[in-house]
């Protein structure tokens, strides 16, 4: 065990710093537009303006971004080195420089196309997606198909060289602003439910698509209902084989869980909660001096540190070429539960100041904590609800039996990692 960086990695850090000093200046930093809405509380806001794109292209060329993506598809193409990736991430954050475009397209669709797409699809979509020039939404959930996603009923019928789609998707984040959708539809109505699904790429400008925004409990509009009325999609926009969409989508969900399980947002929320406790009084003394609040803060910090050090452990396993096993299954449930508990403590520190939110001129921290509290429930649900995570941990992690009623394909239990 040695938490210091090797000389090679220290040199690499200097290289990255020199690159950033030259290519992302104070002027660039000052040009960052203020975030819109409240989605930045999830860390999901990424700038994709001209200045950011110019920078990103240089960073890709230097091999700092999209390192796992081949150059011919628009990536940095570098040998895997999780420690270098950690260093790049740390330095880019320090410099407040544009990072890889996070979100459904770059984080979920692009890896799926790399694994399952054909060359034509890769060359058409990956590069522009990685630069944020094409934005994506995910057409998975339906009103009757949430956790039981494989029961989905939106259907596609073949008409010449086009699929004709009819149906209804829901909880579709960013459908109102996205250029394209990657979508699961039923193409073989007579096959068992997991075998009758295909994975399609749908241009959101296609005639017959009707997007109706849904307002969330936070007051923001980010997710939507999407209605399909005889929407025509070229057959060439099928990813993988017809009827294999369930398998194709598994690689996407895997990436989404990794995305949602990250600890940076949780760390930021915790540090913000400590500042809140230091800055606000509770009945005549700083909240941080309240014994109950101190105790809860330390308890939450222990969980946060455990999750950060768990990240080091996973990083080391990756660097050694070892499987994550059971250790990799728990990150989403652990981080999202922790995030919720941190925001709950912030609510108690606020006490009656939690009665008001964004827009109230006297609200502490611009009223962001009550909103963050609501958001923390959103991320418990997004990307597979907490209970679905528990099923996965129990079945794949512990080898407990599947519930026969769920009709899922059998999966092999994972081993416990070192």
């Amino acid at each position: 065990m040695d938490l210091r960086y090797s000389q090679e990695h220290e040199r690499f850090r200097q290289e990255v710093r020199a690159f950033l000093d030259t290519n992302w200046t104070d002027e660039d930093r000052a040009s960052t537009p203020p975030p819109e809405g409240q989605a930045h509380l999830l860390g999901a806001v990424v700038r994709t303006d001209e200045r950011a794109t110019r920078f990103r292209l240089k960073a890709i060329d230097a091999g700092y971004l999209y390192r796992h993506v081949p150059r011919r598809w628009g990536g940095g193409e570098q040998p895997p080195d999780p420690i270098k990736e950690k260093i790049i991430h740390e330095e880019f954050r320090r410099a407040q420089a544009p990072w890889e475009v996070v979100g459904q397209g770059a984080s979920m669709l692009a890896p799926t196309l790399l694994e399952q797409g054909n060359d034509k699809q890769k060359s058409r979509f990956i590069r522009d997606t990685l630069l944020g020039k094409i934005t994506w939404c995910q057409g998975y959930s339906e009103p009757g198909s949430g956790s039981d996603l494989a029961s989905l009923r939106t259907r596609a019928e073949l008409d010449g060289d086009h699929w004709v789609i009819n149906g209804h998707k829901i909880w579709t984040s960013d459908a109102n602003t996205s250029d394209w959708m990657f979508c699961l539809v039923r193409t073989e109505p007579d096959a068992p439910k997991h075998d009758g699904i295909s994975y399609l790429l749908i241009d959101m400008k296609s005639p017959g698509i009707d997007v109706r925004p849904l307002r969330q409990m936070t007051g923001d509009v980010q997710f939507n209902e999407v209605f399909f009325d005889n929407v025509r999609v070229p057959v060439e926009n099928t990813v993988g084989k017809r009827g294999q969409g369930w398998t194709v989508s598994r690689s996407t969900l895997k990436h989404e869980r990794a995305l949602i399980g990250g600890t940076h947002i949780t760390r930021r929320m915790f540090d913000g909660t400590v500042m809140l406790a230091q800055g606000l009084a509770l009945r005549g003394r700083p909240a941080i001096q309240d014994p109950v609040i101190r105790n809860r803060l330390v308890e939450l910090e222990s969980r946060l540190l455990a999750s950060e050090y768990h990240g080091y452990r996973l990083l080391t396993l990756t660097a050694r070429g070892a499987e994550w096993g059971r250790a990799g299954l728990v990150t989403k449930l652990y981080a999202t539960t922790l995030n919720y508990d941190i925001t709950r403590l912030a609510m108690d520190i606020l006490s009656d100041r939690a009665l008001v939110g964004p827009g109230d001129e006297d609200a502490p921290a611009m009223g962001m904590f009550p909103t963050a509290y609501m958001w923390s429930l959103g991320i418990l649900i997004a990307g597979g609800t907490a209970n679905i995570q528990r099923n996965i941990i129990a079945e794949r992690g512990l080898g407990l039996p599947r519930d026969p009623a769920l009709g899922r394909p059998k999966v092999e239990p994972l081993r416990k990692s070192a």
Partner: protein
Amino acid sequence: MNFGLTEEQVLLKDTIRRFLAEQCDTTRVRAVMESETGHDPALWRDLAGLGVPGLAIEERHGGAGLELLDVALAAEELGYAATPGPFLAVALATMALTASANRPAQERWLPAIAAGNAILTLALGEDDCEWDPARAKTTAAANTLTGTKTVVPYGAAADAMVVAATESGEPGLWLVERGAAGLSVRPRAGIDMTRRLDRMTFDRTPATKLASGRAATDRARDAGLVLIAADAYGGATRCLEMTTQYALTREQFGQTIGAFQAVKHQLADLTAEIEPSLSLYWYAAHAFDHIPDKAERHAALAKAHLADLYDRATRVATELHGGIGFTWEFDLHLWFRRAIFDRSFLGEAGHHRERAAALAGW
């Protein structure tokens, strides 16, 4: 940047695990815990043969010269197997002796500890749940000690003990040998029968001064906190495994109970809490030797967190086992009782969280 075990460390863990599985199953655990002393000299000799008591003792004193992390890996395995005996007592005394920098005492006792020929312990806790050496009511005067230590692990079995006391209001460490004048022992009715506790009373008992100040005592306490965290991780893991096995075999309503979501979700939640907590004790152990400014606080955090987690693990395990889990014959209570030891010894979670808050400047 490498946060993982070395091949040697994995081998150490595997060796201890295999040895305990083969040589110290719960039949032997029960025999030792129901014996008068709670100490099995043959078992201790075998553990010494594997190098366990000498892991962190310097090579010039006959040890392996390794770090607290290596001792903690052993503690995890002993916790996993609910191994009875003076491991924690000896480790605490070893750390106190090492930190005291008293060469004559080190040369006299450390080689004997490493060889398995001497049992030493640390006498720290006093009435009113006081573990702070600066507030010890045991006092030293003219090379004698007077006072009472309430929960001394293996005090009766120890050949010598390191005692925290104050002299003219200043904390320090002294060494008292077995059979010293004015030393009396009263065994406690310990809940955890695999780790014996004794009340030790000193009445003008002859003692040798080892160190002045509180640094050596704090160091031993921090090591103890990390070792308890590691023991708790091992025990919690064992509870999870036992209960998973039970859920895979016990049938009710025509199916194994592990197919019920209520059961699966309790075990999944426990898994999700246990997996990352491994890294917390690893980090605390690593910090003890390599990151001085984080060592004390992480030891406190790790002990509070892991002991709490162990408590939850034993609760879930007992609940899911149903009636069988509440019997004397079934082994689960061995770990339940060890969890009580881990949560209470060296002070409860709230105390260490408050210390961690103060250390952060909050």
